[in-house]
């Protein structure tokens, strides 16, 4: 759930010349508009396999801070077999995030190695990398044209990770809506080949932040889809830093 795309978007005061903006500014503006002190929602995840087999999971999502310095704890609540399994993500501005997973049945946390971020996030069509927040400074941007997604006019921006950023993708295409700077779609490529397409819809204004309530990931290799629905979404609830540590992950 690319931060850029899921949670973008407020109108930016200084971006008055929208049409003349350069790509980096569009992305930065998009990022700024979605900035919040914290976020919390209950997600419902439907994985629809190539043969239309559907499995449903639910999690609770809590984030403190924004973008480069944010921390996330994501805790599964259903089905019963996975209840309590949690993931802690600590984002960094200058390098890949640290990720730990907690499995309560064996009372163990495990680090998700940077090298393993390209693997799928437990049977969903997200990869571990897709759970990271994207910091605007870790990429180079260029406007690749204009397009419309779901009938809304968008800038089509190409982004490439900088040397310092380790990524499974060599490039991405990002569609940012001109009206509200919300990311409408991302296509991730590895050497010209489409790996994943993430589509954002059902965009609503929650506490002044335009937020897509439905995220759909399409895995081009496996031809399977995962649909995430955000429920009980709230911004800027009071949260404490100490609730986003390994110790906190192990609690509960």
């Amino acid at each position, binding site marked *: 759930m690319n931060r850029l795309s899921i949670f973008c978007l407020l109108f930016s005061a200084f971006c008055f010349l929208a049409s003349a903006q350069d790509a980096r500014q569009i992305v930065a503006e998009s990022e700024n508009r979605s900035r919040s002190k914290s976020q919390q929602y209950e997600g419902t995840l439907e994985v629809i396999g190539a043969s239309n087999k559907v499995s449903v*999971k639910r999690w609770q999502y809590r984030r403190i801070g924004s973008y480069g310095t944010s921390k996330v704890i994501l805790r599964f609540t259903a089905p019963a077999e996975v209840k309590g399994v949690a993931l802690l993500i600590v984002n960094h501005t200058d390098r890949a995030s640290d990720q730990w997973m907690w*499995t309560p049945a*064996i009372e163990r946390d495990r680090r998700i*190695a940077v090298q393993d971020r390209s693997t799928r996030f437990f049977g969903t069509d997200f990869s571990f990398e897709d759970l990271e927040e994207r910091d605007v400074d870790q990429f180079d941007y260029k406007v690749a044209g204009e397009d419309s997604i779901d009938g809304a006019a968008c800038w089509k921006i190409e982004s490439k990770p900088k040397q310092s950023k380790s990524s499974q993708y060599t490039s991405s295409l990002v569609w940012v809506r001109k009206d509200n700077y919300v990311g409408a779609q991302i296509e991730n490529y590895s050497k010209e080949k489409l790996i994943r397409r993430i589509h954002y819809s059902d965009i609503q204004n929650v506490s002044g932040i335009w937020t897509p309530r439905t995220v759909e990931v399409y895995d081009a290799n496996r031809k399977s889809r995962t649909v995430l629905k955000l429920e009980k979404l709230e911004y800027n609830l009071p949260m404490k830093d100490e609730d986003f540590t390994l110790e906190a992950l192990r609690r509960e």
Partner: protein
Amino acid sequence: MILLKLISWPYVRQHLPRWLLTIAGIVLGVAVFVGIHTANQSVVYAFHQTVDRIAGSTELQISAGETGFDENVLDRVQAVPEVRVAVPVIEAVVGTGVQGQGNLLILGVDMTGDRSLRDYDLESNGQGGDEGIDDPLVFLAQPDSLMVTDTYARENHLAIGAKVPMSTMDGRKLFTVRGVMKSGGLTSAFGGNLAVMDVYAAQKVFGRGRKFDRIDLAVKDGASIAAVRTKLEALLGPGFQVQEPSARAQQFDTIARVYTLTANVTSVFALFIGMFIIYNTFQIAVTQRRAEIGILRALGATRGQIRTLFLGESVVAGLFGSVLGLLAGIAIARGMTGYIGSLLGEIYGIAQKADEISTNPMLMTFAVVLGVITSVVAALIPAQSAARVDPVQALQKGKYQQLSAGENRARRIAALVVAIAAASCLLLERFRIFFYVGDALAVLAALLLTPTFALWLARALRPLLRWMRPVEGTLAADSLLQAPRRTSGAVAALMLSLALVVALGGLTRASYDSIFGWLKVALNPDLFVSPSQSLTQRDFRFPESMGAQLRAIPGVGDIQMVRDARVLIQGQPTMFVAADITELRKHATLPPVAGDEKEMFRLTAQGKAVLASDNFATLRGFKLGDVVDIPSPSGVLHLPIAGIVTDYSDEQGSLLVDRSLYKRYWNDTTVNIFRIYLARGAAEAEVKRRILEQFGNQRRLFVLTNRDVRRYILRLTDQWFGITYVQIAVAVLVAILGIVNTLTVSITDRRRELGVLQAVGGLRNQIRGTIWLEALAVGTVGVILGLALGALQLYYSLHISAEDMAGLRLSYEYPYPIALMLLPGILAVAFLSAIAPAETAVRGSLVEALEYE
């Protein structure tokens, strides 16, 4: 070639049983060689294959002997920029309670990263889903998750969701099959009996604490494996081994080599004796076919042609025998592979599962060539004497070539020279090569002297036999005296066989004696609490805290906590035993072979020194006071050897250190075995029951009594010496072959004589008696010489075993019980092997026997 067909074939056809008997020596030799080697190779191959298959696309593996290492090593390895992927692994072999399925190799991996190294090729789950692990999150979330191969699933009728019982450190648990791996790659490892589980769940199940056995890694594109290896070695220090997966398999080869060596001795021995039997038969054939040779020579055949004829026969015989031996060998291998596999598995706890034998064309070719060469070498002298046959003399009827006195004298002188050389080799004993040469020379001297000794003994036996049965006895003795060549081959074969039996018997007995002695003084705890039924299996481990719980059980006196594991010392896996030395000393007496008893325990208990086992010192060339470099995950320890003690924990030698030292440097507090001494007055059975009662339900644990352990160790020893019994069986078989061969030849040779005997009134039973007595005489002479040579050979065997194989210093003790059993045994065998030839002798036509050649 045409000569072979015209001259040799009819002769062979006429004496077919004898020919088959002759090549039996070759068959046996080649069969044993091919059999044991193939079995051994199959086991080694199975292990390589298992390692290879499990490795997947792993380019380097990091391990620290058998001890495992802390989890944080993984982070350090993953932080190396050239490492593309690094994943933790725990490997363990467990018995599943599933009937007839044997052991299951459990591979504990971290599924998040592992799939970039290993292709699990998961089967779809029936409803068309593309996910073999029904739900990967569930797989990780539930520690009872298991992924099995499709073969295993099929054979055990396991579908996704099925339960598999396994006993874990927390007692018996049911595991759930959450994934099935399709055939190919990984699934053929360990004969398909493979299951994958989460590495963190495995830590818990096997009581490993926060440790991994191994890290498997692959380097980034463009990085050199060698460079990454060097970098990792520098990063982790000498306590870690960074190797390519194949190198891990090679360590196993070292262990299997001891076995191969023994196998080689047996087969060389069988071939050697086969050589004698062939020599014998050819020599007789030459005598019998003198007239034929004379005619051929008279008709213009050159000496060279005659020689070629006989050598040609030997090539054919060798080839035929080798091919038969090859087939028999493959059959033997089929029978033995499982045996060797389980033996090595049990002794070294190494995971492999050899179901099929792997034949090696190189080995097969080598065996055939070996067989043919043996046959040709055996035929060299007879072929030479055939070539020397004087046509005029040969054509005269009724004359036999006699063994010339000169030949005998020459042989005796040669024997003397060889014996002196052998003796002088003993003076240079410290150079191993001279020692082996000396052994070979001693055997050679014995062989050269065999005809002479056989003659003397036969002469000495003559009055005895005559006294027993005047005619039959005299004739039997004279038959030996008259044709020393005929008998000496069989006697030599018998002598060698029995010498081997005596040497091996003595070696085995001495080993058992000293193991018994060691068991008595060193292995004297009353109860052993182990997480595995087998004390050599170290896959499961107890937490240290269990010690206190055990101590609280009424009736438990002292407790010793022992952790043993193999570490690499000088690149060789070495058994490392960490025990509380002060506790150990309270009960066990470990009389030092070298070193001051008080001082060595004091230093070792303080962690300032190690105690080395006798065989470690001998095999690795360490002396008292020498410093051993022991690589640990926290750096290299340089510890002096404070004492050398007798310890049979491991065939390759072992080092004993204080537990505190091990805990400190390996950061490992787990325990393999609790050794328990009962409190005064406590009943063994009662304490055992209490322990089982307290822990039985919550822990995987076995309580073994001292008796159980002794029985277990002796069973292992038995298995280890199993190959010795094969050797003894081969030796006795060869002895039988030799006697039957000699008698068959002797009867053909003495047909006329036996005919005369019947013509002048000998009854059938009297003829039979002659042959039986001859067999008994050959047996007796062979036994006497064999027991004598055995005494010598035992000396060499003990030295070879002590210095080059097991490093055990064993005392020389002649195995009188075996010797005493051998005499009646071999005489009975001789008698049995005489039955058929004797019947042939009395059934033949008298008229033909009396005909003039």
